[in-house]
C-alpha cells in the first residue's frame, strides 16, 4: 500500500543503521588532518591560514564572546524562521483557498525572492534600526518561500478519493483543508523546512554584517579587521554547527509531529 504524498529527494534514501555517520566523519577527519599538516609544515602565516588546532584553541579561549554572539544570531534565526513558518503557511492557505489570490500573489512572492540581499539588508536596517527586528524580518523574507511552495505542492497531492469521501460525509471546504489537505502536505512542509533552514543562519549573519550590535556577523567582522583569522574560522565553525543542529532538529520535529510518515516509509521500503 503506498502512502500519498511521498516527498522525493531530501528526506529520501539515507544509509540505514548505526554506521551511517562513519563515512561523513572519515571524510571530515581526512580534510582536517590534511589542513593541519599543511598549516603547520608549510610555514604559512596563521593570519592567512591558521591550523585547525589553533582555531579550536582560540575559540575555546574566547568562548565567552563567541557564546554571547552565537546566542544573538541563534535568536534572530529561530525567531525569523518561526515567522517564516507562520507567514509561509498562511500564504499557502490563502493561495490554496482562492484561484484569484493565487494569481494575484504568486508573482509577488516569486519577485520577493529575486531581491538581492546586499541591497535589501542595509535598507531594512535603516528602516527598522539595529535591533532584533530587521534580522528577524530578513531571515523570514528569505526563508518563507520554500515553505509556501512546499505546502502548495503538498495540498496538490491530496488523494481525490479522500476529498470525495469527506464531501460525501458533509464536510465543509475548511474541514477538508484541515483534515485532508494540511496533513497530506506535512511531509512536503518538512522538506521545504530543511531547504530553508540551511541558509537561514547565513542570512542572519549577513543581516548582522549590514548593521548590528551583537551576533556572529558582527564578531566575524570585528575579528577580520584585527586579522584574528583563527577566531573568524572559529565563528564559521560555530555557524556550521548551528546549521547542522537546526537541520537535525527538523528530523526530530518531523518524528514528533508526523510519526506515521517515517514508519510507513520504512514499511513500504521493506
Amino acid at each position: 500500500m503506498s502512502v500519498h504524498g511521498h516527498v522525493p529527494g531530501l528526506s529520501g534514501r539515507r544509509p540505514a543503521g548505526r554506521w551511517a555517520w562513519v563515512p561523513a566523519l572519515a571524510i571530515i577527519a581526512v580534510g582536517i588532518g590534511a589542513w593541519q599538516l599543511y598549516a603547520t609544515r608549510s610555514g604559512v602565516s596563521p593570519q592567512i591560514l591558521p591550523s585547525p588546532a589553533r582555531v579550536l584553541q582560540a575559540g575555546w579561549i574566547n568562548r565567552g564572546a563567541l557564546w554571547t554572539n552565537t546566542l544573538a544570531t541563534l535568536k534572530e534565526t529561530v525567531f525569523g524562521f518561526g515567522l517564516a513558518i507562520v507567514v509561509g503557511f498562511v500564504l499557502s492557505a490563502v493561495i490554496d483557498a482562492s484561484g484569484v489570490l493565487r494569481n494575484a500573489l504568486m508573482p509577488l512572492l516569486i519577485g520577493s525572492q529575486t531581491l538581492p540581499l546586499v541591497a535589501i539588508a542595509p535598507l531594512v536596517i535603516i528602516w527598522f534600526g539595529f535591533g532584533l527586528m530587521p534580522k528577524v524580518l530578513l531571515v523570514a523574507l528569505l526563508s518563507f518561500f520554500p515553505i509556501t511552495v512546499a505546502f502548495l505542492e503538498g495540498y496538490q497531492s491530496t488523494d481525490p478519493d479522500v476529498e470525495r469521501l469527506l464531501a460525501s460525509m458533509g464536510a465543509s471546504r475548511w474541514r477538508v483543508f484541515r483534515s485532508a489537505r494540511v496533513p497530506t502536505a506535512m511531509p512536503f512542509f518538512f522538506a521545504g523546512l530543511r531547504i530553508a533552514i540551511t541558509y537561514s543562519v547565513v542570512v542572519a549573519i549577513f543581516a548582522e554584517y549590514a548593521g548590528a550590535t551583537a551576533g556572529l556577523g558582527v564578531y566575524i567582522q570585528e575579528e577580520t579587521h584585527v586579522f584574528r583569522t583563527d577566531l573568524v574560522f572559529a565563528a564559521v565553525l560555530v555557524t556550521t554547527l548551528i546549521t547542522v543542529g537546526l537541520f537535525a532538529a527538523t528530523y526530530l520535529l518531523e518524528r514528533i509531529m508526523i510519526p506515521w510518515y517515517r514508519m510507513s516509509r520504512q514499511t513500504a521500503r521493506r
Partner: protein
Amino acid sequence: MTTRPPIASERADREAPKLRLEGVRHAYRELEVLDGVSLRLGAGELVTILGPSGCGKSTIFAILTGATAPTSGSVLVDNAPLGRATERFAVMPQSDALLPWRRVIDNVTLGLEVQGVSRREARERVTPLLATFGLDQFARAYPFQLSGGMRQRAALLRTVVQDRGVLLLDEPFGALDALTRTDMQEWLESVWDTFRWSVLLITHDIREAVFLSDRVYVLSPRPARVVAEVTVPLPRPRRMAQLSSPDFVRTEHELRQALSAGRADATQT
C-alpha cells in the same frame, strides 16, 4: 374498533422503499451516461447494481451523494425528494481512502467527527463494533500496518457508524486479491445478516453479486439503462459452499446472459 388484516395498499406503504430512482438520466456534456435508470431499494435489503466497467454505475452514486445532478428523473429517499444527500447516505469508496496519518480508531470515527460528534462519544459508539469488524487488536494501528482485508473492514466500519439510512458500497473489494476477496465476501454476508443495513452495492463481479444480493439490477454499457432485474433465490445465511448449488449457478447464468444481451444491444445501436 375492529382489527382487520392489512389491505394491499397499506402493506405497500409499510414496505415503501428506502430509495427509489425513477427514469434517472444524466449526460456529461454531449456524452449520455445514464439513459433512464429506475430502481428501488427496500429497507434492510441488499441490492446490487451490476454492469460492465465504465457503464456509469459510479455516476449513480455521484447523483445520490449530491456530487452531480441528474438531467432528468427523480430520486426519492423515504418517499421524499432527495434533500441534503449527505444526511441520507454513507459511502464506501473503491479505494479504502483511509487517512494514513490517523490511527484506525480515528479513521473509523471520521464521519462522526465531521457530523460534529465529540471525539469521546464517537469512540464510545465505535468501540463495541471493533470486535465484529475484526479490528479490536488494531484500534491503535496505522492503516499502513493493516492487511488489505483489514483496511476494507475499517473502511466499512467507518461507513456503517455514520448511521445514515443507506450504505453505498462502490466495488468495495475490487482492489483485493481473489482469496482475500472471497473471505471478505463471506465476512460481509455474515455481518450484513446480523445488522441488515439497507445497502446499494456496485460491482462488476457476477459471483459477488449473486452471493451477496437480495436483488440485482443489470445495467447495459453506456448510456446505462436497466436491462434486467433478478431476484436471488438463495436462503441466508449464505456460505461459499452454495456456489455450486443449482440456484446459484442458474442465477449466475441468468445475470451473465443479461449482461451480454445488454452489450449486444449496445453494439447494434
